[in-house]
Protein backbone atom coordinates (compact mmCIF):
# COMPACT_ATOMS: atom_id res chain seq x y z
CA UNK A 1 0.00 0.00 0.00
CA UNK A 2 1.38 3.42 -0.91
CA UNK A 3 2.06 5.92 1.79
CA UNK A 4 0.51 9.36 1.86
CA UNK A 5 2.51 12.52 2.47
CA UNK A 6 0.96 15.78 3.66
CA UNK A 7 2.32 19.32 3.57
CA UNK A 8 1.02 22.64 4.80
CA UNK A 9 0.00 24.89 1.93
CA UNK A 10 2.33 27.88 2.27
CA UNK A 11 -0.19 30.16 0.55
CA UNK A 12 -2.58 30.17 3.49
CA UNK A 13 -2.46 32.56 6.44
CA UNK A 14 -2.16 30.69 9.72
CA UNK A 15 -1.78 31.40 13.40
CA UNK A 16 -2.13 29.33 16.55
CA UNK A 17 -4.73 30.85 18.85
CA UNK A 18 -4.92 29.32 22.28
CA UNK A 19 -3.66 25.96 20.98
CA UNK A 20 -5.90 25.77 17.90
CA UNK A 21 -4.93 26.79 14.39
CA UNK A 22 -6.77 29.63 12.72
CA UNK A 23 -6.31 29.38 8.96
CA UNK A 24 -7.39 31.60 6.11
CA UNK A 25 -7.52 30.05 2.69
CA UNK A 26 -5.27 31.74 0.15
CA UNK A 27 -7.77 30.74 -2.51
CA UNK A 28 -10.87 32.61 -1.34
CA UNK A 29 -10.06 34.07 2.11
CA UNK A 30 -12.39 31.62 3.84
CA UNK A 31 -11.52 31.32 7.52
CA UNK A 32 -11.19 27.91 9.18
CA UNK A 33 -10.29 26.79 12.65
CA UNK A 34 -8.77 23.39 13.21
CA UNK A 35 -9.67 21.28 16.22
CA UNK A 36 -6.94 19.73 18.34
CA UNK A 37 -6.45 16.65 16.12
CA UNK A 38 -6.42 18.66 12.93
CA UNK A 39 -4.02 21.14 14.51
CA UNK A 40 -1.58 18.34 15.35
CA UNK A 41 -1.87 17.04 11.79
CA UNK A 42 -1.31 20.54 10.34
CA UNK A 43 1.71 21.23 12.50
CA UNK A 44 3.29 17.88 11.65
CA UNK A 45 2.56 18.17 7.91
CA UNK A 46 6.12 18.87 6.77
CA UNK A 47 5.82 17.05 3.45
CA UNK A 48 8.53 14.58 4.50
CA UNK A 49 6.88 12.58 7.26
CA UNK A 50 4.33 10.02 5.99
CA UNK A 51 0.80 10.38 7.33
CA UNK A 52 0.85 6.95 9.02
CA UNK A 53 3.95 7.97 10.94
CA UNK A 54 2.32 11.26 12.02
CA UNK A 55 -0.72 9.30 13.18
CA UNK A 56 1.26 6.69 15.12
CA UNK A 57 3.68 9.14 16.77
CA UNK A 58 1.57 12.25 17.31
CA UNK A 59 -2.09 11.24 17.35
CA UNK A 60 -2.49 7.66 18.69
CA UNK A 61 -0.57 8.43 21.86
CA UNK A 62 -2.37 11.70 22.46
CA UNK A 63 -5.89 10.39 21.93
CA UNK A 64 -5.44 6.65 22.73
CA UNK A 65 -7.07 5.38 19.55
CA UNK A 66 -6.38 2.30 17.42
CA UNK A 67 -3.79 3.07 14.70
CA UNK A 68 -5.88 1.68 11.81
CA UNK A 69 -8.97 3.62 12.81
CA UNK A 70 -6.94 6.77 13.47
CA UNK A 71 -5.18 6.52 10.10
CA UNK A 72 -8.48 6.19 8.26
CA UNK A 73 -9.86 9.27 10.05
CA UNK A 74 -6.63 11.18 9.41
CA UNK A 75 -6.75 10.37 5.69
CA UNK A 76 -10.34 11.59 5.47
CA UNK A 77 -9.37 14.76 7.34
CA UNK A 78 -6.28 15.33 5.17
CA UNK A 79 -8.33 15.01 1.98
CA UNK A 80 -10.94 17.46 3.33
CA UNK A 81 -8.23 19.96 4.20
CA UNK A 82 -6.69 19.46 0.76
CA UNK A 83 -10.08 20.16 -0.84
CA UNK A 84 -10.07 23.53 0.93
CA UNK A 85 -6.52 24.26 -0.24
CA UNK A 86 -5.15 24.13 3.31
CA UNK A 87 -3.03 20.98 2.93
CA UNK A 88 -1.29 19.39 -0.01
CA UNK A 89 -1.34 15.60 -0.28
CA UNK A 90 0.76 13.34 -2.43
CA UNK A 91 2.00 9.77 -2.64
CA UNK A 92 5.51 11.23 -2.92
CA UNK A 93 7.32 13.41 -0.35
CA UNK A 94 6.54 17.10 -0.90
CA UNK A 95 9.39 19.58 -0.81
CA UNK A 96 8.48 22.96 0.63
CA UNK A 97 10.40 26.12 -0.12
CA UNK A 98 10.23 29.31 1.92
CA UNK A 99 9.02 31.23 -1.10
CA UNK A 100 5.48 30.01 -1.01
CA UNK A 101 5.92 27.45 -3.75
CA UNK A 102 5.86 23.72 -3.26
CA UNK A 103 7.63 21.27 -5.48
Amino acid sequence: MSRLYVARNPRVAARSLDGEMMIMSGRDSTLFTLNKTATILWQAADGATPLDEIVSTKICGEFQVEPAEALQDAETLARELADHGILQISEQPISLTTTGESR
Partner: protein
Amino acid sequence: MSGLLEQMTERALAKNIPLSVQLDLTYRCNERCVHCYLDHDDHGEMTTSEIKHLLDEMADAGVFILTLSGGEIFLRKDFFEILEYARWRRQFCVKLKTNAIMVREREAARLREIGVESIQISIYSHRPEVHDGITLVPGSLQRSLDAAKFLKSQGLRVIFANVLMVQNLQDYQGVRALADELGVECTLDPTITPMMDGDRSILSLGVDHNALQKVFRDQGLVGDVEEFCTIAAPGDENSLAALPCSASHTACYVSPYGDVFPCVQFPLPTGNVRKERFLDIWRYSDQMNDVRSIRLKDLTTCTSCTHVTSCTRCPGLAFMEGNMRGPSSQDCQKSFARTGVPSANMLAKKRTAANLVQIRVLPSTENAPASGAIA
Protein backbone atom coordinates in the same frame (compact mmCIF):
# COMPACT_ATOMS: atom_id res chain seq x y z
CA MET B 1 -17.37 40.37 10.74
CA SER B 2 -17.92 36.68 9.94
CA GLY B 3 -19.19 34.45 12.73
CA LEU B 4 -15.95 32.52 12.95
CA LEU B 5 -13.81 35.66 13.02
CA GLU B 6 -16.07 37.02 15.73
CA GLN B 7 -15.49 33.86 17.77
CA MET B 8 -11.75 34.12 17.24
CA THR B 9 -11.84 37.76 18.30
CA GLU B 10 -13.69 36.81 21.49
CA ARG B 11 -11.02 34.23 22.26
CA ALA B 12 -8.22 36.67 21.49
CA LEU B 13 -9.86 39.19 23.80
CA ALA B 14 -10.11 36.65 26.61
CA LYS B 15 -6.43 35.72 26.19
CA ASN B 16 -5.20 39.31 25.64
CA ILE B 17 -3.89 38.51 22.16
CA PRO B 18 -3.37 41.33 19.64
CA LEU B 19 -5.16 39.63 16.77
CA SER B 20 -4.91 42.57 14.39
CA VAL B 21 -2.22 45.21 13.83
CA GLN B 22 -1.88 48.06 11.38
CA LEU B 23 1.74 48.74 10.54
CA ASP B 24 2.51 51.92 8.63
CA LEU B 25 5.67 51.30 6.62
CA THR B 26 6.24 54.96 5.77
CA TYR B 27 4.60 58.35 6.05
CA ARG B 28 6.14 59.40 2.73
CA CYS B 29 3.54 59.72 0.03
CA ASN B 30 3.26 60.51 -3.66
CA GLU B 31 -0.09 62.22 -3.17
CA ARG B 32 -0.89 65.27 -1.05
CA CYS B 33 -4.49 64.66 -0.05
CA VAL B 34 -6.05 67.78 1.40
CA HIS B 35 -7.60 65.87 4.33
CA CYS B 36 -4.54 63.78 5.26
CA TYR B 37 -3.55 63.79 8.95
CA LEU B 38 0.12 62.90 8.38
CA ASP B 39 3.22 64.86 7.56
CA HIS B 40 5.11 63.26 4.71
CA ASP B 41 8.71 63.52 5.83
CA ASP B 42 10.90 60.59 6.84
CA HIS B 43 11.86 61.04 10.49
CA GLY B 44 13.80 57.77 10.64
CA GLU B 45 11.75 54.84 9.35
CA MET B 46 12.46 51.34 10.58
CA THR B 47 14.92 49.48 8.39
CA THR B 48 14.08 46.26 6.55
CA SER B 49 15.70 44.15 9.25
CA GLU B 50 13.95 46.07 12.02
CA ILE B 51 10.62 45.46 10.33
CA LYS B 52 11.34 41.76 9.84
CA HIS B 53 12.27 41.49 13.51
CA LEU B 54 9.02 43.24 14.43
CA LEU B 55 7.06 40.83 12.21
CA ASP B 56 8.69 37.93 14.06
CA GLU B 57 7.68 39.44 17.39
CA MET B 58 4.16 40.12 16.24
CA ALA B 59 3.70 36.61 14.83
CA ASP B 60 4.95 35.13 18.11
CA ALA B 61 2.52 37.39 19.99
CA GLY B 62 -0.38 35.92 17.97
CA VAL B 63 -1.02 38.72 15.47
CA PHE B 64 -2.94 37.19 12.58
CA ILE B 65 -4.32 40.10 10.54
CA LEU B 66 -1.61 42.52 9.43
CA THR B 67 -2.61 45.69 7.63
CA LEU B 68 0.27 47.37 5.81
CA SER B 69 -0.40 51.03 5.22
CA GLY B 70 1.20 54.47 5.10
CA GLY B 71 1.93 56.97 3.57
CA GLU B 72 2.25 55.12 0.33
CA ILE B 73 3.55 51.60 0.90
CA PHE B 74 4.94 51.16 -2.60
CA LEU B 75 7.38 54.02 -2.02
CA ARG B 76 9.41 51.65 0.16
CA LYS B 77 11.96 49.99 -2.09
CA ASP B 78 11.85 46.94 0.18
CA PHE B 79 8.06 46.68 0.10
CA PHE B 80 7.89 43.32 -1.69
CA GLU B 81 10.68 41.92 0.48
CA ILE B 82 8.68 42.87 3.59
CA LEU B 83 5.46 41.51 2.13
CA GLU B 84 7.07 38.20 1.15
CA TYR B 85 8.50 37.86 4.64
CA ALA B 86 5.13 38.60 6.24
CA ARG B 87 3.27 36.13 4.02
CA TRP B 88 5.65 33.29 3.38
CA ARG B 89 7.84 33.27 6.44
CA ARG B 90 5.35 34.34 9.10
CA GLN B 91 2.03 33.48 7.43
CA PHE B 92 0.14 36.67 8.28
CA CYS B 93 -3.21 37.41 6.70
CA VAL B 94 -2.13 40.63 4.96
CA LYS B 95 -4.34 43.53 3.95
CA LEU B 96 -2.93 46.49 2.02
CA LYS B 97 -3.96 50.16 2.00
CA THR B 98 -2.60 52.17 -0.91
CA ASN B 99 -3.42 54.78 -3.53
CA ALA B 100 -2.09 52.17 -6.01
CA ILE B 101 -0.76 54.73 -8.48
CA MET B 102 2.52 52.78 -8.62
CA VAL B 103 0.75 49.47 -9.27
CA ARG B 104 0.97 48.27 -12.87
CA GLU B 105 0.55 44.79 -14.38
CA ARG B 106 3.86 43.55 -12.95
CA GLU B 107 3.13 44.65 -9.38
CA ALA B 108 -0.41 43.26 -9.56
CA ALA B 109 0.94 39.88 -10.69
CA ARG B 110 3.49 39.92 -7.89
CA LEU B 111 0.79 40.64 -5.31
CA ARG B 112 -1.21 37.73 -6.66
CA GLU B 113 1.83 35.48 -6.42
CA ILE B 114 2.56 36.47 -2.82
CA GLY B 115 -1.08 36.39 -1.82
CA VAL B 116 -2.87 39.20 0.02
CA GLU B 117 -6.34 39.19 1.52
CA SER B 118 -7.37 42.56 0.07
CA ILE B 119 -6.09 45.81 -1.40
CA GLN B 120 -7.87 48.96 -0.30
CA ILE B 121 -7.49 51.87 -2.71
CA SER B 122 -8.42 55.47 -1.89
CA ILE B 123 -10.91 56.78 -4.45
CA TYR B 124 -12.62 60.07 -3.65
CA SER B 125 -14.64 60.71 -6.79
CA HIS B 126 -15.51 59.27 -10.18
CA ARG B 127 -14.61 62.67 -11.68
CA PRO B 128 -10.89 63.31 -12.29
CA GLU B 129 -11.20 67.02 -11.52
CA VAL B 130 -12.58 66.23 -8.05
CA HIS B 131 -10.39 63.23 -7.14
CA ASP B 132 -7.20 64.84 -8.48
CA GLY B 133 -8.22 68.08 -6.76
CA ILE B 134 -8.19 66.20 -3.44
CA THR B 135 -4.97 64.23 -4.03
CA LEU B 136 -3.32 67.28 -5.69
CA VAL B 137 -1.79 64.89 -8.26
CA PRO B 138 -3.03 65.32 -11.85
CA GLY B 139 -3.92 62.00 -13.44
CA SER B 140 -4.07 60.15 -10.11
CA LEU B 141 -7.66 58.93 -10.53
CA GLN B 142 -6.87 57.34 -13.86
CA ARG B 143 -3.76 55.65 -12.49
CA SER B 144 -5.60 54.34 -9.41
CA LEU B 145 -8.43 53.00 -11.56
CA ASP B 146 -5.98 51.35 -13.97
CA ALA B 147 -4.34 49.71 -10.96
CA ALA B 148 -7.70 48.49 -9.69
CA LYS B 149 -8.29 46.83 -13.06
CA PHE B 150 -4.85 45.19 -13.05
CA LEU B 151 -5.44 43.87 -9.54
CA LYS B 152 -8.94 42.70 -10.34
CA SER B 153 -7.68 40.90 -13.44
CA GLN B 154 -5.36 38.95 -11.13
CA GLY B 155 -8.38 37.82 -9.12
CA LEU B 156 -7.47 39.95 -6.12
CA ARG B 157 -10.02 41.49 -3.77
CA VAL B 158 -10.12 45.27 -4.25
CA ILE B 159 -11.94 47.75 -2.02
CA PHE B 160 -12.45 51.43 -2.84
CA ALA B 161 -12.18 53.56 0.30
CA ASN B 162 -13.90 56.91 -0.01
CA VAL B 163 -13.74 59.69 2.57
CA LEU B 164 -16.75 61.99 2.49
CA MET B 165 -15.90 65.70 2.65
CA VAL B 166 -17.18 68.97 1.29
CA GLN B 167 -15.17 68.60 -1.92
CA ASN B 168 -16.70 65.28 -2.96
CA LEU B 169 -20.07 65.32 -1.22
CA GLN B 170 -21.97 64.98 -4.50
CA ASP B 171 -19.81 62.12 -5.78
CA TYR B 172 -20.14 59.15 -3.45
CA GLN B 173 -22.84 57.57 -5.56
CA GLY B 174 -20.61 57.98 -8.61
CA VAL B 175 -17.78 56.17 -6.80
CA ARG B 176 -20.16 53.37 -5.87
CA ALA B 177 -21.33 53.07 -9.46
CA LEU B 178 -17.71 52.93 -10.58
CA ALA B 179 -17.00 50.21 -8.01
CA ASP B 180 -20.01 48.21 -9.23
CA GLU B 181 -18.85 48.57 -12.82
CA LEU B 182 -15.38 47.25 -11.93
CA GLY B 183 -16.76 44.53 -9.64
CA VAL B 184 -14.96 45.83 -6.56
CA GLU B 185 -16.21 46.67 -3.07
CA CYS B 186 -16.66 50.20 -1.77
CA THR B 187 -16.67 51.89 1.65
CA LEU B 188 -17.59 55.43 2.65
CA ASP B 189 -16.35 57.18 5.79
CA PRO B 190 -17.45 60.67 6.82
CA THR B 191 -14.72 60.94 9.49
CA ILE B 192 -11.95 63.50 9.12
CA THR B 193 -9.06 62.87 11.51
CA PRO B 194 -7.17 65.80 13.06
CA MET B 195 -3.48 66.10 12.13
CA MET B 196 -1.18 63.97 14.25
CA ASP B 197 0.42 67.15 15.62
CA GLY B 198 -2.97 68.18 17.02
CA ASP B 199 -3.84 70.71 14.30
CA ARG B 200 -7.62 70.51 13.90
CA SER B 201 -7.98 72.90 10.96
CA ILE B 202 -8.63 70.09 8.45
CA LEU B 203 -11.82 69.21 10.32
CA SER B 204 -13.41 72.07 8.38
CA LEU B 205 -13.39 69.72 5.38
CA GLY B 206 -16.02 67.53 7.07
CA VAL B 207 -19.58 67.62 5.77
CA ASP B 208 -22.33 69.42 7.69
CA HIS B 209 -25.36 68.08 9.55
CA ASN B 210 -27.76 68.26 6.60
CA ALA B 211 -25.38 66.39 4.33
CA LEU B 212 -24.80 63.69 6.95
CA GLN B 213 -28.54 63.33 7.46
CA LYS B 214 -29.00 62.79 3.74
CA VAL B 215 -26.21 60.21 3.57
CA PHE B 216 -27.60 58.29 6.56
CA ARG B 217 -30.96 58.06 4.80
CA ASP B 218 -29.53 56.66 1.59
CA GLN B 219 -30.92 53.13 1.44
CA GLY B 220 -28.19 52.07 -0.95
CA LEU B 221 -25.62 52.87 1.73
CA VAL B 222 -27.24 51.92 5.01
CA GLY B 223 -29.77 49.26 4.01
CA ASP B 224 -32.91 49.50 6.12
CA VAL B 225 -33.04 53.26 6.82
CA GLU B 226 -35.64 52.97 9.59
CA GLU B 227 -33.58 50.38 11.43
CA PHE B 228 -30.32 52.31 10.89
CA CYS B 229 -31.82 55.55 12.20
CA THR B 230 -33.64 54.01 15.16
CA ILE B 231 -32.79 55.33 18.62
CA ALA B 232 -31.24 52.49 20.58
CA ALA B 233 -32.81 51.11 23.75
CA PRO B 234 -31.38 52.61 26.95
CA GLY B 235 -28.18 50.99 28.16
CA ASP B 236 -28.49 48.36 30.87
CA GLU B 237 -25.81 47.00 33.18
CA ASN B 238 -24.60 44.49 30.58
CA SER B 239 -24.45 46.87 27.65
CA LEU B 240 -22.66 49.50 29.74
CA ALA B 241 -20.01 46.94 30.63
CA ALA B 242 -19.15 46.65 26.91
CA LEU B 243 -15.84 47.75 25.41
CA PRO B 244 -15.79 51.00 23.46
CA CYS B 245 -13.84 49.47 20.52
CA SER B 246 -11.06 47.02 19.70
CA ALA B 247 -8.18 49.49 20.28
CA SER B 248 -5.79 48.01 22.89
CA HIS B 249 -8.08 45.00 23.28
CA THR B 250 -7.42 42.95 20.15
CA ALA B 251 -5.83 45.58 17.92
CA CYS B 252 -3.15 48.24 17.86
CA TYR B 253 -1.07 50.37 15.50
CA VAL B 254 2.68 50.68 14.87
CA SER B 255 4.16 53.76 13.16
CA PRO B 256 7.08 53.68 10.66
CA TYR B 257 9.32 54.76 13.56
CA GLY B 258 8.34 51.83 15.78
CA ASP B 259 5.99 53.76 18.05
CA VAL B 260 3.07 51.66 19.25
CA PHE B 261 -0.36 53.26 19.69
CA PRO B 262 -3.76 51.79 20.62
CA CYS B 263 -5.00 52.57 17.11
CA VAL B 264 -4.02 54.57 14.02
CA GLN B 265 -6.55 57.18 15.12
CA PHE B 266 -5.43 57.22 18.77
CA PRO B 267 -2.07 59.04 19.10
CA LEU B 268 -1.33 57.99 22.67
CA PRO B 269 2.26 56.63 22.67
CA THR B 270 2.51 53.36 24.58
CA GLY B 271 6.11 52.32 23.77
CA ASN B 272 8.59 51.84 20.96
CA VAL B 273 9.58 48.49 19.47
CA ARG B 274 13.14 49.72 18.96
CA LYS B 275 13.48 49.86 22.75
CA GLU B 276 11.09 47.18 24.02
CA ARG B 277 9.58 43.91 22.85
CA PHE B 278 6.24 44.33 21.05
CA LEU B 279 4.56 41.87 23.42
CA ASP B 280 5.87 43.66 26.50
CA ILE B 281 4.40 46.95 25.25
CA TRP B 282 1.13 45.21 24.44
CA ARG B 283 0.89 43.52 27.83
CA TYR B 284 2.51 45.90 30.28
CA SER B 285 2.38 49.46 28.96
CA ASP B 286 0.54 51.64 31.49
CA GLN B 287 -1.07 53.59 28.67
CA MET B 288 -2.22 50.43 26.88
CA ASN B 289 -3.69 49.11 30.12
CA ASP B 290 -5.36 52.44 30.85
CA VAL B 291 -7.15 52.33 27.49
CA ARG B 292 -7.93 48.66 28.08
CA SER B 293 -9.63 49.42 31.39
CA ILE B 294 -12.30 51.70 29.90
CA ARG B 295 -15.88 50.47 29.73
CA LEU B 296 -18.90 52.37 28.44
CA LYS B 297 -20.05 52.92 32.04
CA ASP B 298 -16.80 54.83 32.74
CA LEU B 299 -17.33 57.50 30.11
CA THR B 300 -17.88 61.06 31.21
CA THR B 301 -21.00 62.61 29.68
CA CYS B 302 -21.57 59.71 27.25
CA THR B 303 -22.77 57.26 29.95
CA SER B 304 -25.92 59.34 30.37
CA CYS B 305 -26.39 59.85 26.63
CA THR B 306 -29.32 58.37 24.71
CA HIS B 307 -26.87 57.04 22.13
CA VAL B 308 -24.37 55.41 24.50
CA THR B 309 -24.92 51.86 23.24
CA SER B 310 -25.31 52.67 19.55
CA CYS B 311 -22.83 55.52 19.07
CA THR B 312 -19.77 55.06 16.87
CA ARG B 313 -17.78 57.03 19.48
CA CYS B 314 -14.08 56.78 18.72
CA PRO B 315 -11.92 56.89 21.88
CA GLY B 316 -9.00 58.13 19.78
CA LEU B 317 -10.93 61.11 18.47
CA ALA B 318 -12.11 61.74 22.05
CA PHE B 319 -8.46 61.61 23.17
CA MET B 320 -7.58 64.18 20.52
CA GLU B 321 -10.33 66.39 21.93
CA GLY B 322 -8.65 66.15 25.33
CA ASN B 323 -10.15 63.17 27.17
CA MET B 324 -10.13 59.52 26.08
CA ARG B 325 -13.09 58.92 28.42
CA GLY B 326 -14.97 61.89 27.03
CA PRO B 327 -17.15 62.37 23.97
CA SER B 328 -15.99 62.52 20.37
CA SER B 329 -17.84 65.46 18.84
CA GLN B 330 -17.72 64.04 15.31
CA ASP B 331 -19.48 60.91 16.53
CA CYS B 332 -22.01 63.03 18.48
CA GLN B 333 -22.79 64.73 15.17
CA LYS B 334 -23.19 61.37 13.46
CA SER B 335 -25.60 60.09 16.13
CA PHE B 336 -27.57 63.34 15.89
CA ALA B 337 -27.72 63.20 12.08
CA ARG B 338 -28.75 59.55 12.22
CA THR B 339 -31.53 59.84 14.80
CA GLY B 340 -32.43 63.52 15.04
CA VAL B 341 -31.74 63.40 18.80
CA PRO B 342 -28.85 65.57 20.05
CA SER B 343 -26.24 63.81 22.18
CA ALA B 344 -25.74 64.52 25.89
CA ASN B 345 -22.48 66.23 24.95
CA MET B 346 -24.22 68.53 22.47
CA LEU B 347 -26.90 69.43 25.02
CA ALA B 348 -24.26 70.10 27.70
CA LYS B 349 -22.33 72.36 25.33
CA LYS B 350 -25.52 74.23 24.49
CA ARG B 351 -26.18 74.83 28.20
CA THR B 352 -22.63 76.02 28.73
CA ALA B 353 -22.89 78.30 25.73
CA ALA B 354 -26.17 79.72 27.06
CA ASN B 355 -24.49 80.51 30.39
CA LEU B 356 -21.77 82.37 28.56
CA VAL B 357 -24.14 84.78 26.81
CA GLN B 358 -23.51 88.21 28.29
CA ILE B 359 -25.52 90.33 25.90
CA ARG B 360 -28.94 91.38 27.10
CA VAL B 361 -31.76 92.05 24.72
CA LEU B 362 -32.73 95.72 24.88
CA PRO B 363 -36.37 96.62 25.46
CA SER B 364 -38.06 97.40 22.17
CA THR B 365 -38.41 101.04 21.28
CA GLU B 366 -41.02 101.86 18.72
CA ASN B 367 -39.21 104.85 17.31
CA ALA B 368 -35.75 103.37 17.29
CA PRO B 369 -33.89 103.87 14.01
CA ALA B 370 -33.87 100.91 11.65
CA SER B 371 -30.90 98.63 11.92
CA GLY B 372 -27.95 100.03 10.05
CA ALA B 373 -29.41 103.51 9.87
CA ILE B 374 -27.29 106.33 11.13
CA ALA B 375 -29.01 108.26 13.85
